[in-house]
């Protein structure tokens, strides 16, 4: 019986990892004033790349996912920053294209098979000493991406609040003309934010395959990219808030384990809908109590 809470926490951490990775990336982009809806598709394409390269090794799968994520984000950045197109429209288009591409490639590449092949998953990494602790210790044996998530959260927090570059990036999301007046190029900060965001999105997609399912299914991201966008708002555009927010969604996703464990008579469809319902409720409850970057979603005005 005492194993049940730990099992739930473990499931929470597992489910929170891909959402958190994508959300930390999205946070960076949004602080620079860019709303990237395309991360949903980017995540799915990265998952597919991970299953292809994962045939070699799980780490190769991770790297392929990161690459696919950066590529998708770069296409988005090209249209949004360089060609100054509407962010929401480009984001939707990129998302649908990446999603479609992963489906098409999956059917072409694995036409003869009934499903994508199984790949080896990453082994859990034990934290020295601490993982030997009774009870809690078993939580400290997670696959690599989980550690990357919390390290990324801390790094992003340090960068945003403790460096001049982070200050400039935040200023880009608030008032790009002030950044330009300081002799810096706001577009540069947006590009950098999107590339890093793409890498983290890619890692999130690869995690689904290489650290969790061990295979690829069509539309594998299943709305996690959109949830990540909601988590950014939920976390009030701060790294710590985003980490807490993704754990909250992880908990909602692991609701099914609780239901099973305690034998509560709730249809499983309802428990599956929980994360999405929580998104709506929490966002509605927090309405007005936080503030998005002033220029979020807006194209930078041309100088002069």
């Amino acid at each position: 019986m005492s194993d049940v809470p730990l099992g739930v926490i473990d499931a929470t951490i597992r489910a929170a990892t891909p959402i958190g990775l994508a959300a930390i990336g999205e946070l960076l982009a949004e602080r620079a004033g860019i709303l990237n809806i395309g991360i949903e598709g980017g995540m799915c394409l990265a998952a597919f790349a991970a299953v292809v390269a994962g045939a070699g090794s799980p780490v190769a799968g991770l790297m392929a996912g990161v690459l696919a994520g950066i590529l998708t984000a770069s296409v988005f950045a090209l249209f949004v920053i360089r060609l100054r197109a509407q962010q929401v429209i480009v984001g939707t288009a990129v998302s649908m294209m990446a999603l479609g591409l992963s489906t098409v490639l999956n059917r072409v590449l694995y036409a003869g098979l009934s499903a994508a092949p199984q790949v080896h998953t990453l082994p859990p990494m034990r934290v020295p000493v601490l993982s030997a602790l009774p009870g809690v210790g078993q939580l400290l044996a997670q696959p690599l991406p989980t550690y990357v998530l919390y390290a990324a959260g801390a790094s992003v927090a340090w960068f945003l609040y403790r460096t001049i570059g982070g200050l400039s990036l935040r200023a880009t999301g608030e008032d790009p003309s002030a950044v330009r007046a300081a002799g810096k190029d706001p577009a540069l900060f947006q590009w950098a934010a999107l590339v890093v965001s793409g890498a983290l999105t890619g890692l999130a997609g690869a995690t689904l395959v290489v650290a969790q399912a061990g295979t690829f299914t069509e539309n594998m991201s299943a709305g996690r990219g959109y949830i990540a966008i909601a988590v950014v708002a939920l976390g009030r555009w701060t790294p710590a808030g985003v980490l807490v927010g993704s754990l909250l969604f992880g908990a909602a996703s692991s609701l099914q384990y609780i239901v099973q464990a305690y034998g509560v008579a709730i249809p499983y469809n309802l428990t599956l809908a929980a994360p999405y319902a929580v998104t709506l409720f929490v966002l509605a409850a927090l309405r007005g109590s936080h503030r998005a970057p002033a220029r979020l979603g807006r194209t930078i005005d041309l100088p002069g």
Partner: protein
Amino acid sequence: MLLGENGAGKTTLLRIAAGLDRADSGRVIVGGAALSGLRGRPIRTQGIAVVSQHFSLVPTMTVAENIALARRGTIRRFSPSRAAPEAIEAAQRTGLAIDPDARVNGLSAASQQRVELVKAIATDPRIIMLDEPTAVLDPPDAEKLFAWLRRFVSGGGTAVVITHRLREAMTYGDSITVLRRGRIARITDASVPSETEVVTAMVGEVPVFRVSTPSRSAGPAAASAPVVLSAAGVTVTRAGIATLRDVTLEVRRGEMVGVAGFEGAGQADLLRLFTGMVTPSRGVVVAPEHVGFIPEHRHRDAMIGEMSLRENFRLRDAGDLRGVIDWRETDARTRNAIVTFDIPASDVHAAAATLSGGNQQRLVLARELDGDPPAIIAENPTRGLDVRGARIVHDRLREGCTRGAAVLWYSSNAEELIEFSDRVVACHRGTLREVAPTLPAIAAAMVAAE
């Protein structure tokens, strides 16, 4: 020192010289080398600091963060706890007071101007370019700024300053360049010319203003005229601090009352009481339903740059929920305003942002005076305007007054207050008192109420 009327091209010239904008033809030489490369980049590489007339501060960030933003580097450490002392240190070099922890969007125009100046100075520039730095500064701060600029220049720095104040240019400048309609009308040593010579170069004709007596046609309003604006025993408290204390004021029909006071002395809240934007925590305020209001931040509070002139003209009624806009009638009124206020606009569909600062102010003035409102409130309405622009503002306010409006206005220029007001009141730390319309009396009242 760069002088010229509104729209003469001063700001354009400055921005091109700084590398912020690119010239259609010609080259910019800085320190013997031509400026090239990306927009904005030259500022960084050449050690040029620019303070624009339109503030380039991030409104949602603190003063210290805004000052740190101008520093170079990417991974270079930024620490909120160290940024504040650094900001204060930079401010102390000039003597300009700033509050490093304050958020910019809560600051007055004068405070924001001080932050902009400190931000520019903190980058240790070789060349500093200031676009009308003293337009909103209090006189003591303006003096501190020029004292610092003189030290900066004698230490080998170069300074370019745009100003509308002749005396400033002649007192502190080494050389004066006068622009008129995009051409250089005159370059001269600052000590040589007379005031009239410079003004002549600016406007291209012998100016007749100043010679004429103030057009105070109606004279002080009769004591029997009805009171239009009144505040009785009003106290305004913001976050526990009283910005106005037990203030009483009456403005009668056909009367023009001027308010003097340093930034933060309470005049901003006093004026806004009558527009309904500030609610008294104690006391009674009486004002007509419709009040013409000319705010100090005209770009931020009075117009939408992306919208057309006619749309901006119509914005006065933006609070109305009922009614259909009669565009033909609006166009006629807008055209009428363009003609009577001498606004150089091609047509009513032009975006308001295409007008120069002075002409935007004329548009706001025209709109707020349209329909003869019973009361007019104006905050520093001649801020940043040249002699001719200021004169139009003065004339129109007086005209509104003659037609029976009660006019209450604030100006950072005491001479202007004396010249055009029927009565002058001075604000000091939230208290108000009537003063004799002389410079020494006003100056004394601004510094201490007793």
